[in-house]
């Protein structure tokens, strides 16, 4: 963990491993502490009823008692270190896991994109569509102004085959309409006569 204010850097597994080691050391310390019980008992030694024997017995009891106190303090210190280490690790782990879960859960709230079909403008009212004047055919010019092409008509009443000068494709004119031949510069009115095939 860094000492910087406003940050921390924790290797979580190492923290947990340290807590495990502290627990193991605590067990190691507590094991001889249980063996001290035998030291608390007054020694059953036939030293005799002389003053030094009582002094030795008291000294032995004091040392045993002090040793037990020291071992107990060491044990409490190890247990405190273990519990603090576990608590710190649990807090960091809970913080990280909780944050990941809460932030990640937001993605479940994302709405599905709507299927939008953009409209194709078909009506345009503003500005109004200008009324285009009907195209006017070019002004007819005299047939003498341009070579006439088409089919030479046979004399009236003749059943001779018309002489073909040139063949052009023209649309069938509507009733009362006029078909013009227009080569890009000259316009010539044509007379179209529909005849049944013979």
């Amino acid at each position, binding site marked *: 963990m860094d000492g910087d204010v406003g940050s921390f850097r924790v*290797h*979580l597994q190492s923290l947990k491993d340290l807590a495990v080691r502290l627990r193991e050391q605590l067990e190691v310390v507590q094991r001889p502490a249980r063996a001290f019980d035998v030291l608390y008992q007054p020694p059953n030694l036939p030293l005799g009823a002389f003053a030094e024997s009582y002094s030795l017995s008291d000294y032995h009891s004091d040392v045993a008692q002090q040793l037990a106190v020291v071992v107990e303090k060491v044990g409490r210190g190890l247990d405190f270190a273990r519990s603090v280490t576990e608590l*710190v690790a649990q807090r960091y782990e809970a913080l*990280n896991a909780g944050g990941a879960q809460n932030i990640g859960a937001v993605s479940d709230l994302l709405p599905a994109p709507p299927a939008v079909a*953009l409209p194709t403008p078909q009506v345009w009212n503003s500005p109004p569509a200008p009324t285009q004047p009907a195209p006017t055919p070019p002004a007819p010019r005299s047939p003498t102004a341009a070579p006439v092409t088409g089919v030479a008509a046979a004399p009236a009443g003749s059943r001779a085959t018309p002489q073909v000068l040139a063949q052009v494709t023209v649309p069938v004119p509507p009733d009362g309409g006029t078909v013009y031949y227009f080569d890009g510069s000259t316009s010539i009115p044509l007379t179209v006569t529909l005849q049944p095939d013979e």
Partner: protein
Amino acid sequence: MAELLDYRFGDMESTNTAVQQRLNDFRSTLSDFKGTYVRLAGQWGGATAQGAGQVAQTLDKFGNDVASVVNRFLTELTTHLEESISTERKNTNLFTG
């Protein structure tokens, strides 16, 4: 589980500020979009204006939903930063208190 937890509160706060700024930009764009379609709908006519209005409303709702989710995301980020600072303070107090 992540091997290493590397929390830098200053960087986290900068990220949250950036997300907040993007959210503001998004809401502003959404508002501009609504104003534009209202203006266009007033100029158009017929079924086209009606269709455009429906599309705009659908996108507007979607945009608001997205903004709501981003806002929730920002709230979670802010909460996580506060909890991180609080956790660090509590852990530090275990040794100094």
